[in-house]
């Protein structure tokens, strides 16, 4: 009896202080993986992407969340494919900030994304652009991701890799801008295949 009278108010107080997180609103590990891969694609398209992201985060008002590159890198390390992978999940505010950042960066790089996807550009030029993008992305993937993971091996595979990289560029193009936020967020929360 004594136990009940002591613990019950505590439990209630805890519930009042921190409402239970909505599990559906959080990104799964797979979602975090895709989000980081898309940010990596942005870096492959923009040589100065790392700095540009911090600048863009400040512009969007996320200066307190991502004041510098290290804080941004720490959030991105929740990607399970990373060499320096962190356990746990990100809060919804943090993932929303990362998605907004990604949409804004994709919006900024939209002309490049469009060139990669356009059929009206001369074919050899398009192929060269894709080659350049692939080589930069492969370099970044080798540098930062764990080569023993199956997902990374698929991305670097000469057969499978180009298809996955094209899907990343497509998702960036259709998720660019302010209007792309909801599409991209919903897509990152897809059920696992």
């Amino acid at each position, binding site marked *: 009896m004594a136990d009940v009278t002591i613990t019950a108010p505590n439990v209630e107080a805890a519930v009042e202080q921190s409402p239970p997180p909505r599990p559906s609103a959080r990104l799964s590990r797979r979602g975090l993986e895709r989000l980081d891969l898309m940010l990596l694609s942005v870096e492959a398209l923009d040589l100065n992407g790392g700095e540009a992201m911090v600048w863009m985060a400040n512009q969007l008002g996320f200066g307190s969340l991502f004041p510098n590159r290290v804080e941004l890198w720490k959030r991105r390390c929740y990607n399970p494919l990373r060499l320096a992978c962190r356990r746990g999940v990100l809060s919804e505010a943090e993932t929303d900030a990362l998605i907004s950042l990604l949409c804004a960066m994709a919006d900024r790089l939209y002309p490049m994304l469009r060139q990669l996807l356009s059929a009206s550009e001369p074919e050899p030029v398009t192929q060269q652009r894709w080659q350049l993008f692939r080589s930069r992305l492969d370099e970044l993937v080798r540098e930062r991701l764990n080569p023993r993971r199956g997902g990374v091996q698929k991305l670097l595979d000469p057969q499978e890799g180009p298809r996955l990289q094209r899907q990343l560029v497509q998702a960036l193009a259709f998720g660019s801008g302010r*209007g792309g936020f909801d599409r991209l967020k919903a897509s990152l929360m897809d059920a696992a295949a």
Partner: protein
Amino acid sequence: MKLSYRFEQTSCRLRIDGLPDLSAGHGPEVIGILSAWELDLAGHPTLEGKRDHLQALLAAVLPYARHLVSSVPRPMGLATDPVQMEPISSTRAGLRNRPAHRLRLLSSQPDTQPLELSFDDAELADLVRCLDQLRLDPRVQLGFSLPPDRPLPRREILERVPLRQRLAPPAAGLAALAITAALGLMVPLPRPTATPAASPAATPTSPLTPPR
């Protein structure tokens, strides 16, 4: 006073004309009543129509783009809807840029063939961005009701994996089971052993007598 706004992307230009809906409390800069819209797509005829057609265009193109972000393109719009969107399947599997999306417009006038426009990824992305601008512009309040973007359930994602790849694991399991069963049947059953010879009849023993 008639208002006119334009939304532009590289291959796409959308112009909408209308008036503020003063009864709904809109400001003088806001289009609340749509009088006309016109969509110019590079290399295609100009599209125009009424409010319902614009709503149908948004309802077909935006969910289609949502599915493309997840890399599972799916036809949008019923056969009777004025605007439909569908992926163009190609026999030549490849990663080359090609017109991969088809927009089909059914005219409300009888005896008119449906108009089909094909887009590559870049042109469709331009159109989607144009429609996004329209949707998010605070100066345009036409009250379009669009379904919210939702995460796709597992069964829709599964389509991304080719059928052959999906069926391979269960087929391999069944094959393994069949082979094991066949091997098991080939192992001969143990023969029944010969009945042991009858043991000699027991002879009663003399009761033990304690030694004297």
